[in-house]
């Protein structure tokens, strides 16, 4: 229970994508590490600017695909060769070419499931409550405006100094985010 601060962080508001990328880059250069930026559409370079470089999602999707492939093919081989072999016109029990279409489908199904549920899990969604929604103007983050939030958990965070730092990035407004 690290309940040491009453605020979640300080949030600066911008009206252009370029401005928030520049601001995030400068905050990163200034040594802030715990921050996040919010935008109404994916902004190129913004994730890199806040110091987020790589997502492991492709690996999860690859794992899902391999699982689907092995599970699908394995199910058919197990049932057709071992569990209930049926001799139909002398055709081989292990007729693997006929198993490929279903193997392909189970591969795609599991990989797609891994992509969606992996993305949601890594993003921590669904999340019923998040402090950034306490800022009234934050509803513009899904419409027109861009936000940069430096979080109170940052070791360099100081209510006054960080506010002054954010002010010099020429935002429209700086607001305190209640926890």
């Amino acid at each position, binding site marked *: 229970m690290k309940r040491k601060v009453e605020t979640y962080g300080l949030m600066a508001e911008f009206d252009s994508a370029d401005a928030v990328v520049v601001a995030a880059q400068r905050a990163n250069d200034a040594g802030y590490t715990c921050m996040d930026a919010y935008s109404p*559409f994916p902004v190129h370079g913004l994730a890199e600017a806040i110091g987020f470089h790589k997502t492991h*999602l492709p690996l999860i999707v690859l794992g899902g695909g391999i699982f689907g492939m092995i599970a699908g093919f394995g199910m058919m081989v197990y049932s057709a060769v071992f569990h209930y072999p049926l001799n139909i016109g002398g055709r081989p029990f292990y007729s693997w070419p006929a198993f490929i279409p279903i193997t392909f*489908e189970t591969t795609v199904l599991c990989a797609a499931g891994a*992509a969606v549920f992996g*993305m949601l899990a890594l993003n921590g969604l669904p*999340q019923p409550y998040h402090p950034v929604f306490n800022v009234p103007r*934050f509803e513009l983050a899904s419409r027109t405006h861009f936000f940069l939030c430096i979080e109170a958990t940052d070791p360099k965070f100081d209510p006054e100094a960080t506010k002054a730092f954010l002010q010099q990035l020429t935002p429209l407004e700086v607001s305190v985010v209640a926890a």
Partner: protein
Amino acid sequence: MSSETPDKPAPVLTVLRPGHTYASVTDQISAAVLTTHTPRWWLAAVGISLSIVMIFTTAVAWLLIKGVGIWGINVPVAWGFAIVNFVWWIGIGHAGTLISAILLLLRQDWRTSINRFAEAMTLFAVACAGVFPLLHLGRIWKFYYLMPYPNRMSLWPQWRSPLVWDVFAVSTYATVSFLFWYVGLIPDLATLRDRAKNWWGKHIYGLLAMGWRGSARHWSRYTMAYLLLAGLATPLVVSVHTIVSFDFAVSQVPGWHSTIFPPYFVAGAIFSGFAMVITLAIPLRSLYGLQDFITMRHLDNMAKVMLATGLIVAYGYMTEIFIAWYSDNKYESYVIFGNRMTGPYAPTFWALMLCNIAIPQLLWLKKVRHNIPVLFAIAIVVNIGMWLERFVIVITSLHRDYLPSSWGMYYPTIWDWATYIGTMGLFTFLLLLFIRSLPMISIFEMRELVHEQAGEHPKEGHGHGPAQTHPTPTVE
């Protein structure tokens, strides 16, 4: 690239009318959903489509009571309307996936304003398609026999059967299409949550948006997930209609047993799907005043895709006819020349040639592609033609067996028609619910488009300056 592009002084076709801002695209698209004013035409259309759904439920109820004998199917034509309609509907769905996945991978910016409702069209078309094989089972309540499940008889599905492949292909396709559509909706649901005025709107959209807040980390994973889904959906959509064609091609029936089937089925699916997207886009853009977002460029490009895939389909027909002659196989050539072209169902064959090959050639003319009523009419003709194609393939290949003693005719009954027209009502009804309750154009991707267009029109001029970094959105 120097000063003025000399090739075309013709009016520039843009994917988004210039002058739009983040706020204007957001407000205009979400207003259609968040308004408390429900348009009259919408209520009327729901009334009509719901009445047709009633016809559908009646037909299904009667089918459950009496069995598939109420349809026109009998030996030798055991596959009647159910299979024709199944293939037709599933083919229509394919354009939605093509637009949202393949055009995303190819970085075609004109996909943005049509992908959302095209994906919804896919979902509803697949739902209508899925109804038919289930009804065709006769004993619908035993449908779960198709899936591998633990049972006391230790029985498994027959993995070597294309019909079982089809079950997996269609159910995977439906699931992945839904996931793709929902993932695309999440940021827009957040927009609706933030812009909704009443309690219900805030809470329902809020629940569905799952707390999306547009974080840069989230966007990073989100775009990656979306890209990977597009990469997975692309081979999937090809596999689905390939497997549907295997239902025919793997059998030994003359007229079905052909290696050209998978590619020409896939092309035919895209052909009919684009025809359906045009059929839906033209009324939607005028009813909702979306001419800024669904521009002439979209209609022009879709007409071109329709023309191109139509030519592939024509090539498929020609190959079938050529091989029937060249193979010198008497059964093959009888099916094509003795039956399809001249037999009792010959009018459907020639109507198919007219609808799918002759009339779409008008799309070579720019004047035709830019004439909205004519384009709409051609799209309808292609929809009919693609339905006729499946009718010709299914019925004419079956109704004359090898021995004349086992020949027969297939005539659809009123229940065949009621079920078929009923699914059209179901499709329309679901689509109407969708356009009233969810944004029919992807809002966040439109904002992205505004951003990109702003980036390529620096202050100096209209995109002719050297600072141009993005490909220009003008056509040709």
